[in-house]
């Protein structure tokens, strides 16, 4: 790859309405996928804030974990989980396209590459769960 690009001022850009992504289901799903990153980021900042509570002592940490049992927070985490799972599935699907796997002469079918990713994800998730249960106190 070279750093050569056309002069942006000479490119033609078709005017698009800001709501173009509402016009077709595939565009809408694309925007939902982009939006998943927002919910994932908010979740991680909430988690960071929970960890920050430890600087105020373990009581503050436990109190904050219990605060998250309110219906509003549970709903938020339910929505965040749905978006995170959507990101996981779509990321594995696109990985299978971007990084095709070869076995000798043959290209491994995309569905199998995606399925292997999902299998690895299940193993990693269970590993984290077991580690957390082993380390928590």
């Amino acid at each position, binding site marked *: 790859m070279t*750093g050569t690009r*056309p002069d942006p001022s000479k490119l033609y850009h078709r005017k698009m309405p800001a709501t173009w992504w509402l016009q077709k289901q595939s565009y809408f799903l694309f925007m939902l996928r*982009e939006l998943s*990153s927002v919910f994932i980021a908010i*979740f*991680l900042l909430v988690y960071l804030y929970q*960890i920050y509570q430890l600087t105020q002592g373990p009581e503050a940490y436990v109190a904050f974990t219990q605060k998250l049992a309110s219906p509003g927070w*549970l709903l938020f985490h339910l929505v965040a989980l749905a978006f995170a799972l959507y990101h996981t599935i779509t990321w594995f699907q696109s990985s299978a396209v971007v990084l095709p796997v070869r076995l000798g002469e043959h290209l491994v079918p995309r569905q199998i590459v995606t399925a292997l990713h999902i299998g690895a994800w299940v193993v990693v998730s269970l590993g984290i769960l077991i580690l*957390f249960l082993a380390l*928590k106190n």
Partner: protein
Amino acid sequence: MTTEKTTEPLWWGLFSAGGVVAAFLVPVHIILVGFALPLGWITDTGTLYRYGWVKAYLFVLIVLPLYHWAHRFYFALNDMGLKPMNKTLAILCYGGAVIGTVVTAWILLKV
């Protein structure tokens, strides 16, 4: 044609790494933090956050998806018609991720 050096590969690399981290690691943490702890399925007083390697893991878990967010959100806003202010958006999105990195490191070191 113009030849230019850009920082794009760096941001794209961080976006990609963040996408992998988010895909593999985030769902189980949402289950732990969002449901298992608040609903009392498991109890924890947070002693595991004192381990150095847990801090290093959490740094990766929290920081890389922030760059993933910055990249996706920046381009989504551009695609939604905010391209005229793309310089400001770039500073807000990528700058936000950089600030997030510093704050995350500071909190993890303090705990």
